[in-house]
């Protein structure tokens, strides 16, 4: 069974590109465009990995990350944070809140795909 990925992003064009990339890599992809949708989607069916944008409406990426990490049931979900904020503190904050990796926009599609594959394959 294909690994499932939840893309949380509010910018439609970026969603489209991530969807395309992840499908191409052979993953099952779902999309959420704000924090609440994201948490609902996780509750509905926990994904193996979340590509989580930080600047999203309603509940931001940090909030979503923290909420997921506070639930032991979701302990094995990988989280990669995506952000347009390039500062080191932002990165540290993401890691501290339990993100597995942190990617700054604009990102290299190859690198991102490699990171996702590495995490999900290593889990097997």
């Amino acid at each position: 069974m294909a690994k499932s990925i939840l893309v949380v992003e509010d910018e439609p064009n970026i969603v489209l590109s991530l969807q395309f990339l992840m499908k191409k890599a052979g993953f099952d992809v779902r999309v959420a465009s704000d924090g609440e949708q994201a948490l609902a989607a996780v509750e509905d069916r926990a994904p193996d990995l979340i590509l989580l944008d930080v600047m999203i409406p309603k509940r931001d990426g940090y909030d979503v990350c923290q909420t997921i990490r506070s639930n032991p049931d979701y302990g094995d979900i990988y989280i990669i944070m995506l952000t347009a904020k390039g500062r080191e503190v932002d990165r540290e904050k993401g890691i501290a809140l339990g993100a597995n990796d942190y990617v700054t926009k604009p990102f290299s599609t190859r690198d991102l795909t490699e990171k996702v594959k590495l995490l999900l394959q290593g889990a097997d």
Partner: protein
Amino acid sequence: MIPGWLIAVASLGYLTLLFAIAYYGDRRSDEGRSLILNPYIYAFSIAVYCTAWTFYGSVGLAARSGVGFLPIYLGPTLMFAFGWVVLRKIIRISKVHHITSIADFVSSRYGKSHVLGGLVSVIAVIGIMPYISLQLDAISASFNVLLNYPELSNSGSAIDLPLFGDTAFWVAVLLAVFSILFGTRHIDATEHHEGMVAAIAFESVVKLVAFISVGVFVTFGLFDGFGDLFARAAAEPTIAKLMTMEVVGAQWAPLTLLAMLAVFCLPRQFQVTVVENVDENHLNKAIWLFPLYLLLINIFVLPIAFGGLLRFPLGTVDADTYVLALPLAEGAPALALFAFIGGLSAATGMVIVATVALSTMICNDLIMPVLLRFAWLHLSEKKDLSGLLLAIRRGSIGFILLIGYLYFVLIGESYALVSIGLVSFAAAAQFAPAILAGMYWKGASHRGALLAISGGFLVWAYTLLLPSFALSGWLPAGFVERGAFGIELLKPYALFGLDGLGHISHALFWSLLVNVGTLVVVSLLDRQSMIERIQATLFVEVFRQGGTAGVGANIWQGSVSVSDLRSMAERFLGSERTHEIFAEYARNKQLDRPMAGNASGELVQFVERRLSGVIGAASARVMVASTLKGEGVGLEELMQILDETSQVLEYSRQLEQKSEQLEHASSELKAANERLTELDQMKDDFLSTVTHELRTPLTSIRSFSEILHDTPDLGLSERQHFLGIIIRESERLTRLINQVLDLTKIERGRMEWQMSDVDLAEVIDHAVSSMHHLFEEKNVTVDIRQPETIPPVRGDRDQLIQLAINLLSNAEKFCPGGNGRVEVALESGPKALTVSVADNGPGIPEHEQENIFEKFHQVRSDQTGNPMGSGLGLAICRGIVEHLGGRIWVRSKPGHGATFFFTVPFVKQ
């Protein structure tokens, strides 16, 4: 030769008439119909300046030195004609402070000092004594001339005749009685001796008429008018010499100055000019009437002098007696008797006023302070002190005339009349620096005045008084010739080698130099006490608008009941007068209830001032202080404490001010720092937000480019789709960069505005048509409503188009797809055009409406939660509108669309 009894009867008859006038004057005053309430009587009373010295001595001086007598009259003329501002200020100050004498004036100015008042009194008595003895001398000498002519020898004085000593003595006694009768009827010295003033004015008339009569007799009786008289005088070489100025030369300036000072510093002149003044406006007439009087009485001085010199062989008759000798020699005894009465007027007038003035000083500034200090317990037992005050004054008058007589007997003979008068002038002049500085320089201090007057007086005594003793044989003659202790530099008539000035000018130079120098130097180095500062201010600023009555009222820190204050005042003023004074205060203050309880500081000060009118400022102060409760603190200490407290207060106020300034500066600094931090934060946020906004389209572009690059087998339609995204995101990126640049330019004022008159309707049309496709694509209808004519606005057309496009695209963005409606309306106001752009979108939540124009404040679509723009469009709109002088705002109800308004001012007509 006139029989003695006739002279005696005429004299006594004249004095009786004088007394009748004085009595009548006082009666009229009591009835409230003052006799002296006119400027002419005031001016005539000031003419008491012309004494027997003028009457007899001027002629004598003219016979010796020509016009040398004139400076004595030039000085007062200058003082009244040009220095009346000074006189007016002295009068005003004295009225305000109920000044009773020149000693009181000086003492009051310099902190109500006993010591200073006493010093001035002593100097006045010593200095004026020769002058009084001079009058006694003149009366007895003139009596002698009438009695013995023509046997009279060439010696002007007949002091060696035993009869004469007696005559002068009886004259002194008679004058004492008159002075007492005239001068001490009332005790309130400020209550004006109206009878005395009336009598003095009458005397001035008599002496003027008498002198002019003699002058006319000589000029037109003995000679054929001025021309004849002067022609004959010029023919005599000895007399002709007198008509040149060489005789007096360098003496003129110093003598004129001396007379200028004397005319207000002599105690009797201060008395008539200042203390007895009933109306300040009288001075306006006196400033020309008095000089006119001086002119008239001097017209015939030279004719009489020359007439005497022509008529009598040189040296046979003393020139000081020409006024009497000429009528006698020419068989006009009645005129001679009239002239004698004129001389008597001049002498008695001076003596009466001088003794009254001096007795006031002796009583108020010498005796009372001492009695109040050392014998206070005895005085406190007395219910009524007014009797004591009168007794002291009467005793003083007797005492003054007694020592005047003694001076006459022991010393007087060695001096010519003129010299004696000038010696007194020079003594009185020592008060001038302290008085003048006191009125115009607040810094003049008590210590400065005390040392200055003392120093000036000592120099005066050394250079004028002691030599007169030496000439009389009281001191060894070598004192004058070789100087004290045989030291050349200390020769009293040539101090430190200064020779050739004349005794008077020499003494005046040194004494005033010491006096003024000391006053200035000591005052500058000194620190004034509080009461000194208060008095200095009150004196110097006496004319200040609004008055200074309230100043100093609060220096009385103790409390005193109204009844205690009243009973204290009664002891000096009597119950009737006290009642009047308290009633006057209540009337002035418009109090409808009788005063009770503790007296206000103002009432205490009021009573103190009225009391100073009776016993002088310094004594009044002691009396009031003695009634104040809380005597644990003495007055001096109290003043010191107040002084120190005020210094500490001053110091701490300065400190406080400084720390306030520091605090202010530091809070300003803090605010600036906060503002800087804020700006820094804003710059940070701006950069971070800009970066974020740039990264987003960049992310799409890069991702799809890489996808296209890495996926060669991509289908054509998908390829086209992705390329379209790349193109649109590139456009977005470009737009964003432009907006950031525009906003930065607007914010920093670097935007180049192409200002012109703009038709805003045309601008709207242009904007709408340029967005035509966008609206059609989303099926949005656009309505434009506008008046038929609209005036042009002032603005930059391109920027206004940009503004309209921003608002229209915002409206388009928020309109629901399919049935969107955008309404644009233009409306003319009085000064500006208002444009509104309304959509039927979801509207803007109320909490967002305020922040919506801030940069990077993005409104997200409720449905998608996506940001709808860069967050810069509205910020740019606001920048444009505000630059053009308009306003931009939004009205919206969530669910019912939003309407953006902006205004642009019309072109100014």
